[in-house]
């Protein structure tokens, strides 16, 4: 898991709590890129990701007084970003198109020699599966944490991750005869 650091974080947070707009901008500049990346990897469109970016920092700026400095600042910001991105998925009620197609065509796809690049394969996953892959494999959240953020069970998170990896394995042409 990559961690992002803000130089003089304590003093920036103290100034942000006092309403110093310069400090709020420092916070934004420090975490803008990783927050957007997380949002874009979870959301389907750049517009949604940009909205999540703005909603995340609106929340960060409004609730900086509640940040307790027990964990890393990036960890706190990231959890807000992940929640906002998941909320956006729920609001948009995207259809999990790849799963619908899988259900309809059954296993015919497995006979087709599919080979995609990784970006395309991730994009093809359902929003929920892709969010679980990103939050677990890249951001390092546990299944319990993901379940808490999604309002689901840890078993749901585990099965989503397993299904996602089965699909990625197939779509990336990694299947081998045993």
């Amino acid at each position, binding site marked *: 898991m990559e961690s992002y650091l803000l130089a003089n974080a304590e003093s920036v947070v103290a100034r942000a709590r006092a*309403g110093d*707009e310069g400090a*709020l*901008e420092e916070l*934004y*500049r420090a975490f*803008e*890129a*990783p927050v*957007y*990346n997380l949002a*874009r*990897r979870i959301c389907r469109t*750049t517009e949604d*990701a*940009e909205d999540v*970016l*703005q909603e995340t*920092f*609106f*929340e960060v*700026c*409004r*609730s900086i007084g*509640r940040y307790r400095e027990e964990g890393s600042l990036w960890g706190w910001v990231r959890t*807000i970003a992940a929640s906002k991105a998941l*909320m956006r998925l*729920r*609001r948009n009620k995207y259809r999990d198109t790849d799963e619908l197609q899988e259900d309809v065509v059954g296993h015919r796809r497995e006979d087709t020699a599919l080979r995609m690049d*990784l*970006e395309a394969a*991730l994009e093809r996953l359902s929003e929920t599966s892709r969010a679980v*892959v*990103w939050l677990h*494999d*890249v951001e390092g959240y546990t299944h319990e944490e993901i379940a*808490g*953020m999604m*309002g689901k069970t840890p078993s749901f998170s*585990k*099965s989503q*991750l*397993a*299904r996602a*990896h*089965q699909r*990625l*394995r197939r779509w*990336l042409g*990694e299947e*081998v005869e*045993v």
Partner: protein
Amino acid sequence: MTHLSMEALLSLREAGLEPGDASAREHLDTCLACRAELDRLHQRVARIRALPALRPSRDRWPQLSGRLRVARRAHRHRMAGLIGLAAAASIAVAVLVGPHTEVANGGEQEIEAAMARSQALETALSQYHPEQRMLDGRTAGIAQELEDRIARVDRELEMAELLERQQPKDDQLLKLWRERVGLLDALVDVHVTRASNVGL
């Protein structure tokens, strides 16, 4: 020979030992195919982690800082309204006890009462810490919709307050403050009802 499932392979990558992990590890010691599959899983995850970082196409800070300024002004106004209500309350007491005092403007009092109610609801909501509680998808959607509508009313209030300095229109302000109170009431209901359902 039965090979390890994807779920079993994934659980081998977790820090803690789950039931069945010991036998999975034993299987791994003797099965070349499953070891190769686990290697591919490690490599796939490493490739996902190494994907390039995506960046926003435009700077959103100017828009965000404008929105924050509006929110801060609305907050200050609400706080001022609360102080105004205390003053209005003392005037009301004076009206009740003093037989020859003039009655204060009804519209202003109603606005101040709506501001105070709005502030009380926000305080109740913040003490409930909704941001630390998980909501199911439908409830979260309703809460988000209400928050969006409150934000819209705040923007309209901001505009109405600017105009009011030139041409006072208490009825418009009162309508907006009442709408805000109604939305906040609904938002508190959404959070609290959900909480009582799950016994929090």
